[in-house]
């Protein structure tokens, strides 16, 4: 009786299951099936034996990974890029939002927003191309360095310039776009609060400090926690394009290492081990960040 009823319940809604099917198949095929590949982290994969026949090796791959000096280099490079993003790119986005929010000429506001959003939609390859036009060996900047100071700098192939360039690219491409979420939060502020503050004699800077900033505080906290949660993710596409053998000491991050070991050296098992380490630590960080958000009285991400 019970089963008849419940199967009836499902039958009644069959059109929705038909609609959901392609999407669910997509998720199973391209998100869940790959998870089974993680088992290779515990095997010594040999293409001749195949996935199932390759011998189990337990945690050998992990031991090998944590034992190499590579591990510390990758951890350092990855975390340093995340940290730089957090202390340079992120505050820049907030300041830009505050500035745009203060513009009182609506036409100018919309015009400048249109411009600063645009780079977000360009591909990393295009950004990379523009970077080369300016910072490349025969680019604009080197041309003037030579003309004015008689020197040139190898921006693209040196360790010192890699991080500044990557942060600069990130700001140029995405800081404008990053303001959208703050501006949305600011649009919800009741204008009467500003009026009241004005009556109390507050100036513009005091308004920003006491009204505008607190209004986006929870957005800032959530985005900051999201960033913390993804500390081990680098902007892979960007790094992949900007990296080369001459800046590998600072550009080699977990994602790039996985690519190099896996798809260039075909050492699948080891690459999957590194990727899995990253996924699991990221999972812990995201859940932890969310927990922290709730502790702080914010809504959290989920």
């Amino acid at each position, binding site marked *: 009786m019970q089963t008849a009823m419940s199967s009836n319940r499902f039958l009644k809604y069959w059109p929705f299951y038909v609609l959901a099917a392609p999407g669910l198949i997509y998720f199973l*095929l391209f*998100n869940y099936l790959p998870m089974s590949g993680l088992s290779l982290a515990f095997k010594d994969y040999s293409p001749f034996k195949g996935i199932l026949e390759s011998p189990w090796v337990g945690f050998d791959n992990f031991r090998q990974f944590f034992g190499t000096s590579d591990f510390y280099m990758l951890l350092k490079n990855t975390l340093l890029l995340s940290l730089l993003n957090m202390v340079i790119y992120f505050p820049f986005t907030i300041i830009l939002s505050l500035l745009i929010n203060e513009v009182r000429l609506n036409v100018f506001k919309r015009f400048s927003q249109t411009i600063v959003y645009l780079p977000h*939609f360009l591909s990393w390859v295009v950004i990379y191309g523009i970077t080369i036009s300016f910072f490349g060996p025969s680019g604009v900047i080197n041309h003037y360095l030579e003309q004015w100071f008689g020197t040139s700098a190898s921006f693209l*192939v040196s360790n010192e310039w890699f991080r500044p360039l990557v942060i600069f690219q990130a700001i140029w491409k995405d800081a404008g776009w990053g303001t*959208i979420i703050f501006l949305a939060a600011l649009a919800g502020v009741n204008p009467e609060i500003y009026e009241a503050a004005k009556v109390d004699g507050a100036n513009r800077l005091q308004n920003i400090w006491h009204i505008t900033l607190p209004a986006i505080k929870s957005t800032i906290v959530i985005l900051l926690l999201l960033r913390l949660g993804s500390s081990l993710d680098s902007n892979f596409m960007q790094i992949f394009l900007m990296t080369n053998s001459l800046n590998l000491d600072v550009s080699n991050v977990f994602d790039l290492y996985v690519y190099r070991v896996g798809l260039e050296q075909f050492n699948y098992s080891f690459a999957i081990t590194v990727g899995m380490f990253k996924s699991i630590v990221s999972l812990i960080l995201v859940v932890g960040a969310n927990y922290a958000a709730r502790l702080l009285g914010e809504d959290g991400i989920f």
Partner: protein
Amino acid sequence: MRVRFTWFDSIIVVFISLISLLVILPFLYIIAVSFSPAAESMSGTFYIWPKSWTLDAYSYLLHANSFMGSIKNSLIITIMGTCISLFVSITLAYAISKKYLPGRRVMLLLIFFTMIFHGGLIPNYLVVKNLGLIDSYWAVVLPAASSAFNILVIRSFFQSLPESLDEAARIDGAGEFRILFSIVLPLSKPIIATFTLFFTVQFWNDFFSSVIYINDTSRWPIQPLLRQMVAIGSSNISAEASVDASLAANLGPNVQNAAILLAMLPIIIVYPFLQKYFAKGAMLGSIKE
């Protein structure tokens, strides 16, 4: 009431103008170089108005088979990808927007979990490889067909439509598919437009999946080819540079910058349409149930 324009306002206007200028100048430079004769483009000086205008670089690219081929590949991938992504995302999002649907929570959980945990690069590669998709457009299109984020945003849009709408249609005898296609979708134009544009941009800009999944460079879309074209001469890639020899022979800055411009042209063209919708779309994503 007239708003008084204070020194504070002027500082802000100056600041934002400077930032906007910093964003726009590289574009103007790229455009100017691409319309310059090869000799002037080599100079390395910054200018946004060529001394003499020429279409040399563009006519060169239009006659380069590998370049035009990659544009064609990009168009195919973008159109295929956008259609499939829209279909897969909208249908699934619509189904799970129905609060009374049995099994909805399981589906939601299944989708949501992919946001915080995934197999990673190599397992994904192995799946695509084992499905026999290597070297086909499908390898670029299918793995990127949707994402949890897209589904959740579209779902929240569907949930904002009044429920009485489909109840009324049901009483009038319409089936579920009919309701979706003749009532819900026409009401969903803003979200469909937003995602059509997002997907178009996403597939047009795709670079990495073609690098790893497509070995046959004649099937490469524009982005990986562009990367090789601009990297030549910057010593960033040397040994692996396999750009079509005839294309590489003539690769001055004017041609490189013309290629950059052509690779972003579709984005620049859809941008005005995009702009009308994305603020709304982006905000939808930040609103939670």
